[in-house]
C-alpha cells in the first residue's frame, strides 16, 4: 500500500506487485494467493500478510508487537525462522511479547516493563523464566492462579446438542454452581461462538440451553440476562464497553431498570452502584465520570466484569477474561473469579491461555473443529492432555500428572489464541 511499483504514467505495475508479493509469501513459507482480499482471511493469515508487509520494507529495525498472538505453533516457528534470517542480515528486532517461551527462544536481551514503568534490561542468558516472571509481576507466580476449593452445587447451566451449522455441532455440557469450567481449544475451534450462542447473541440452529432448569428463549440476550446469564465478551472495546460513555454509565448499562422506576434513571443510584463495584474490584480510576477509554486494558476489563456482575448472575460466561491485561490485574481477575465460584456462581471460562485454564478450572472442556472432544477433570488436566485433545490427536487424556495446575510456571505451550 502506497509503495506499489510504478510504470510509466504512474500506473501501478500489477505484475510486479504480484510477483514481489509471491516472493514475500515464499520467504515466509506460506501459501496465500496474492490476489485475495485481506478480508475473509483467517486472523492468522491476516497476521502473516501484515508481517509480509513489514518485511517488504527490508526493514533495518523491525518492531513486532505480539506478532504470534494469533499464530499456531507451526506458523510461529516459520515466523521465527524468518526473524532469524533478518537478524542474520543485520536487522535489529524489537519483539514485544508476553509469551516467555518465545522470548527465551528468540531473543538475546530482554527489557521488562511493569505498570508502564521500566523494570530491568538484561541479557537473557542466565535468566530463568521464574526470575523474569518475578520482574513482570513483582511477586511470585503461585499467586497468579489463586484457585479456591468450592462446593459444587446443582446444575446452573445445561447446554444440550447445541448446533450452529458450519460453526459447531452437538455441543452438550453442564456447569454447576460453584464450578469454574474452562472451554479450551485452538483458534477457530468454535469456543467463542458457543459462548455467543448460549447467551443468545447468535442464534443456534438446533439444541437447547437451560438455565436453572428452565429452557432459555434462543437468540435473545435480554432473555439470557433475565434468566441470570452474564457474558463478558472477548472483544472488550467493541462489545464489552460503550467506549464513549463514562465508567459509571457503562457499569449501569446492564441494570438500567433497577436504577429507578418507569424508565427514569436515578443518577445517584447509578453512581453509588458503580462506586461499590469499583471498590470491590479495586478499580484504578480518576473519576467515575471519566470515559472508559482512558482506562488501562486491565481496568477496562474490570469495568466489564463489574457491569455484568451487577446483574447478579447465576451463570457467568467469561471469554478470554485476561487477554491483553497486565499480569498483576490478571491475578486480581483470577482471584475474583475464584471467590465468585466459591460463593456459588457457575463460571464458564473460554480461554486460550493454557496455564490459566489449568490453574483456574475445575473441569476442562476441549473443543476441536466445532465439536466438544474431551472433558478433563482438574486432576488429569495437563498441557499435554489438553493440547492433545485440542489438536484432535486423541480424546484420551494424557499422562496423569499430580495436580500440576497451581503454580504452573510455563506459559502457553502452543499458539492457541483466537
Amino acid at each position: 500500500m502506497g509503495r506499489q511499483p510504478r510504470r510509466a504514467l504512474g500506473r501501478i505495475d500489477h505484475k510486479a506487485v504480484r510477483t514481489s508479493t509471491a516472493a514475500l509469501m515464499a520467504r515466509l513459507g506460506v501459501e496465500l494467493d496474492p490476489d485475495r482480499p485481506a478480508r475473509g482471511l483467517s486472523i492468522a493469515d491476516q497476521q502473516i500478510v501484515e508481517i509480509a508487509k513489514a518485511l517488504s520494507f527490508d526493514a533495518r529495525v523491525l518492531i513486532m508487537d505480539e506478532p504470534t498472538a494469533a499464530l499456531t505453533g507451526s506458523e510461529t516457528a516459520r515466523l521465527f525462522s524468518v526473524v532469524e534470517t533478518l537478524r542474520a542480515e543485520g536487522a535489529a528486532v524489537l519483539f514485544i511479547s508476553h509469551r516467555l517461551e518465545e522470548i527465551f527462544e528468540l531473543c538475546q536481551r530482554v527489557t521488562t516493563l511493569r505498570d508502564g514503568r521500566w523494570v530491568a534490561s538484561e541479557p537473557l542468558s542466565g535468566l530463568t523464566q521464574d526470575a523474569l516472571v518475578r520482574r513482570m509481576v513483582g511477586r511470585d507466580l503461585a499467586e497468579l492462579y489463586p484457585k479456591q476449593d468450592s462446593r459444587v452445587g446443582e446444575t446452573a447451566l445445561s447446554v444440550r446438542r447445541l448446533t450452529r451449522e458450519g460453526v459447531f455441532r452437538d455441543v452438550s455440557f453442564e456447569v454447576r454452581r460453584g464450578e469454574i469450567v474452562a472451554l479450551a481449544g485452538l483458534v477457530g475451534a468454535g469456543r467463542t461462538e458457543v459462548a455467543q450462542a448460549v447467551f443468545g447473541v447468535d442464534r443456534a440452529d438446533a439444541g437447547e440451553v437451560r438455565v436453572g432448569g428452565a429452557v432459555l428463549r434462543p437468540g435473545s440476550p435480554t432473555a439470557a440476562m433475565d434468566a441470570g446469564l452474564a457474558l463478558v465478551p472477548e472483544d472488550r472495546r467493541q462489545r464489552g464497553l460503550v467506549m464513549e460513555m463514562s465508567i459509571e454509565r457503562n457499569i449501569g448499562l446492564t441494570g438500567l431498570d433497577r436504577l429507578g422506576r418507569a424508565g427514569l434513571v436515578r443518577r445517584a443510584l447509578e453512581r453509588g452502584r458503580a462506586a461499590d463495584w469499583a471498590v470491590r474490584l479495586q478499580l484504578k480510576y480518576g473519576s467515575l465520570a471519566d470515559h472508559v477509554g482512558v482506562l488501562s486494558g486491565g481496568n477496562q476489563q474490570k469495568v466489564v466484569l463489574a457491569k455484568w456482575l451487577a446483574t447478579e448472575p447465576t451463570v457467568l460466561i467469561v471469554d478470554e477474561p485476561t487477554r491483553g491485561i497486565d499480569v498483576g490485574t490478571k491475578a486480581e481477575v483470577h482471584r475474583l473469579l475464584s471467590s465468585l465460584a466459591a460463593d456459588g456462581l457457575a463460571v464458564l471460562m473460554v480461554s486460550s491461555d493454557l496455564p490459566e485454564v489449568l490453574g483456574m478450572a475445575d473441569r476442562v472442556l476441549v473443543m476441536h473443529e466445532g465439536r466438544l472432544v474431551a472433558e478433563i477433570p482438574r486432576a488429569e488436566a495437563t498441557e499435554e492432555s489438553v493440547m492433545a485433545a485440542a489438536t484432535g490427536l486423541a480424546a484420551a487424556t494424557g499422562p496423569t500428572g499430580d495436580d500440576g495446575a497451581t503454580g504452573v510456571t510455563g506459559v502457553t505451550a502452543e499458539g492457541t489464541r483466537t
Partner: protein
Amino acid sequence: MSVTIEKPDKSAAAPETARSARSLVDAVFRAREISIAGALALLVLFTWIAEPRFLDGQGIKDLLLNAAILVLLAVGQSVVVITRNIDLSVGSVVGLSAFACGKFVSGTDHGVLTVLALGLLVGAGCGIVSGALVSFGRVPALVVTLGMLYIIQGVDYWWAQGEQINAADVPQSVLDLGSGSVLGIPYLPLIAFVVLAGTAYVLRTYRGGRELYAIGSSPEAARLAGVPIRRRVLAAYLFSGAVSGFAGALWLARFGTVVADNAHGWELTVVSAVVVGGVAIVGGTGTVWGAALGALLLTTIGSALAVLKVDSFWQDAIAGALLLAAISVDRIVRVRMTRALRKRSAR
C-alpha cells in the same frame, strides 16, 4: 495490544486528579455549546453595530420565529443521529404535513389543536415507515431516508397538483398560533423550547435516552447489554418524524400560504445544524441543546447576512465552512482530550 508509556503526573494528589479530570471532560463537552453561544453573541453584536434595527423588538421576534422550526427539526434529527443513523426525509415530511394540514383546515373552522395533532400524525406515519425499514429491514438509513425524501415529495407534488393553500382559507385560530405571543415572546419559539427541554430531559435521565447513546456509540456492546436496539431506533425515527410533522403544522400557522415544495432542501440544513451543534455524525455523543444552538446559529447567520445586504449564496458557503470546521474541531479535541485524560489517570 500496543503499549503506550506516559509519564505519571506526580504533582497532583489523587482526589485532586479526580476532580480535574472530571472538570476537563465536562469542560470539553460544554466547550462546544459555549463556543457556539460565543460565536452567536459575536455575530449578533457585530450585526447590531452595523445595523441597529437588527436587534429592535421586531428584529428579535423575527429571529426567534425563523429559528423555531429549524430548532424543532434539529431536536428530532439529533435523536436519530445519536443512534448512528440519519433522517434525510425531514424536509419533505414538513412539506407534506404543512400541505396536509392546510388542505384539511382550509375553509373550515377546525381548532388549532386538531391541526397540530394532524401534523403530528402525518409525521409520525412517515417516521414509522423509515424507522421500520431501518431497524427491522436493516436497510442503511441513508438509503431509506433518501428514498423516503423522494417518495414523500412525490406524493406531495401529486396531491398538490400545483395548487396552493392561501392564508385566507386558513382559520384565524391557526394563524394566531403563528403570529401571537405571550409576554412578548412569540408562541413558536416557546413551543420549540418546550420540546427541546423535554427531549433533553428524557435523553439525560431516562433509560431510553441512555440506551440511544449506547446504541450510537457501540451497537455491539448495547446489544450484548440487553438494549432493545430495533425498538429504540424505531422510536427515534418515530420521534423525528412526529416532530417534523408537528413542525409542518407550525409552518402552516406561521406562513398561512403553503405550496407543495415547502421546506425543500431543509434536510441538509438540519443535519448541518445538528453536526455544528456537536452531535457526532457517527453517533453516541452530543446533546439536543447543542443541536438547537447550531440551528439558532445557522438561522442567525442567514438573517444577519440579509440585514447586512450580503448575497444570500454566501449563507450556504458559510454554513458549509462551519460544518467542516465543526467536524475538524471535534476530531482534534477528542484526540487531545484522550491524551490529556490518559496522562491524568496514569498513577
